[in-house]
């Protein structure tokens, strides 16, 4: 009886998944039919399903908004702009197979994406082959641009800038002298914690402890006991929100009430859910700025809300700016080509050559690797148990 149920459940699940798959393929095909004018397509690649679908959809919508605002301008020049959204599911395999599809469609001249560095890295190898420029609004791993690919650009900051930025805020602004560092032994967590530690030591703070934890565990009282005997005046955690939230919660329960700081791995509403009231007096560094700080940003957030009936997420505005840069590059390439449709190589080089583009959250100027010279790291502080946190400051390179 039980096995029968499981079996039918399994079949139903398979059916549902295959239906969904069929749907998504359909939609990308139907978008492909063009009008009488020459069609230029820009693809987005981000997770539209699965655990990080909220962020992935924000990227798609942000890019869509920028594209639709500029459609009229391109129409005058004789081109029809189209958005082709792809779902990479946050999965490198899916991202690469989408990239192949994008590459083989010769009307596509650019890609906005991905969210995950792990997807950006393999997919960009494909873009490089087809010379399609890619601008990521969110992939922060150093390796994304360190491979010196001609097509890969990003508007956000790099991971190896976040640690030092956090250290400078902790030592200079929070006046931390004795710092305890905890990391989660992952490439992200350890990289961040080590970068923080090195920068903090250089600024004259003393590292009174350096410990690591195991991802997936729930009891961090052991590490926290050594924290409380070391009596630091700041605790830094390199890792993600699942462990970070618990560490904060268990530390406060032990009476460790010094500020706790972390990276953008903590920048999630789930972090606040896990830590609850304990989240007060914790800080995080993030590569995503608060759009409500500038008047352009406020206007953008309003337009976004009117159009999609959704609040902006941290990366919506970055996707908007990434699309803006992409279209600017495209426009320059078209102009340089005498108003005719350019080659992908020309668009690629025009995008990399962008100087002093002013977006709603960030200015954009790509260096030789494709990193944004104006990318900033933002410091957030939780004053109450609510997400998002309040922006306390920003640190530029």
């Amino acid at each position, binding site marked *: 009886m039980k096995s029968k149920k499981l079996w039918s459940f399994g079949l139903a699940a398979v059916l549902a998944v295959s239906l969904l798959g069929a749907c998504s393929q359909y939609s990308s095909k139907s978008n492909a039919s063009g009008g009488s004018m020459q069609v230029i397509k820009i693809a987005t690649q981000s997770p539209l399903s699965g655990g990080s679908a909220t962020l992935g959809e924000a990227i798609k919508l942000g890019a869509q908004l920028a594209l639709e605002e500029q459609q009229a301008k391109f129409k005058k020049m004789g081109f029809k702009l189209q958005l082709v959204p792809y779902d990479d599911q946050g999965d490198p395999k899916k991202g690469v197979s989408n990239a192949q599809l994008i590459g083989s469609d010769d009307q596509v001249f650019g890609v906005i994406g991905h969210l995950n560095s792990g997807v950006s890295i393999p997919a960009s190898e494909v873009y490089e082959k087809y010379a399609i420029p890619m601008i990521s609004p969110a992939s922060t791993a150093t390796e994304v641009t360190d491979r010196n690919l001609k097509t890969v650009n990003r508007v956000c900051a790099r991971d190896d800038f976040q640690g030092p930025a956090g250290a400078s805020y902790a030592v200079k602004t929070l006046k931390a002298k004795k710092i305890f560092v905890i990391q989660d032994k992952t490439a992200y967590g350890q990289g961040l914690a080590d970068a923080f530690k090195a920068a903090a030591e250089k600024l004259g703070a003393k590292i009174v402890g350096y*410990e690591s934890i195991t991802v997936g565990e729930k009891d961090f009282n052991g590490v926290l006991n050594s924290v409380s005997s070391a009596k630091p005046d700041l605790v830094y955690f390199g890792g993600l929100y*699942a462990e970070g939230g618990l560490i904060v919660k268990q530390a406060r329960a032990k009476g460790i009430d010094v500020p706790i700081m972390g990276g953008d791995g903590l920048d999630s509403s789930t972090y606040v859910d*896990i830590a609850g009231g304990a989240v007060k007096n914790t800080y995080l560094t993030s590569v995503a700025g608060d759009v409500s700080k500038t008047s352009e940003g406020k206007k953008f957030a309003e337009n976004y809300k009117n159009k999609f009936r959704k609040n902006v997420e941290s990366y919506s505005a970055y996707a908007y700016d990434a699309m803006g840069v992409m279209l600017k590059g495209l426009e320059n390439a078209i102009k340089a080509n005498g108003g005719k449709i350019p080659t992908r190589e020309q668009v690629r080089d025009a995008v990399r050559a962008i100087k002093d583009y002013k977006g709603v959250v960030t200015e954009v100027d790509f260096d030789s690797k494709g990193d944004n010279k104006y990318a900033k790291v933002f410091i957030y502080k939780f004053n109450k148990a609510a997400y998002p946190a309040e922006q306390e400051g920003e640190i530029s390179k």
Partner: protein
Amino acid sequence: MLTDLIGTLPQVLIDGLTLGAIYAVVAIGYTMVYGILELINFAHGEIFMTGAFIGTSLLFLFTGQGWIHTLPAILILLLAIIAASICTGVLGIGIERVAYRPLRNAPKLITLITAIGISFLLQDIVRFIAELKKGTYIINGPNLFNGQIHIKASSLWPEFHDATLKSSFLVVLLVSIVMLAVLDIFVNRTKWGMAMRAVAQDRETASLMSVNVNKVIAITFFIGSALGGATGVLFAVQYGTIDPYIGYTLGIKAFTAAVLGGIGNIRGSMAGGLILGLIEMFAAANLSGLTGGVFGSEYKDVFAFILLIIVLIFKPEGLFGKAAAEKV
């Protein structure tokens, strides 16, 4: 350094006991099934996890109904524990009936692989349901027992630092002690307990003595799984956050505790769990101090497992296990 070690001792004891009590109750599930079937039921960690999820959803249900204001928190928790343990108990019987009983005469390795398969199945079913209902599989339970109790350990002996404990610690400790005591009485004083011990000793002979072996095995799975599920609820209350993968690490540790205490021996497993919890906490808090920073607290598990290996070298049957009589 030594002063640090002594100073943190009260806090280490408290944290170690909480973790140890949870290990102990989960370890019993491994030990009971092993004692009777000589099967390492690797799905037990996932039964623990399922219990945590059922318990948390019940707690959500109760708080949603507004019972939290009318009934004392402890009563709500007990209701959730009892309901979750009945569910996981039935789940345990179901798993035994569907996955293990048809394979009872198959080679041991096949049942072991089946157990691992069941554990993956449970992880993914729970993750699927959690994502469907909540959109994410990391679930935060409602906050119960958030009070903090300060223990003035320094007044006992000036070398000690003061310790802090959450009031949920007392709940976890008390409930698990009660569970352990009731189980001990059940196994050693009742007729069914006697039948269980008989089946564990020799299945064929027990069946000749008119013991219904299938029923005894089903009851063993029920009790083991019910205890595992109940501990899951306690875990959810103590740590506040659960995900479908909590059963894996904890299951391995609890299994280790069972081996440390002598697998097949219920009291041994209880002791093994407590010892493992205490050692782990002690190592996590003091390892970097003792080794001058060479080994950090991340080596706590290595430390615990080295102890396990040493025990097994000198006493292969575990700390409290009897040397197994050769079954003929």
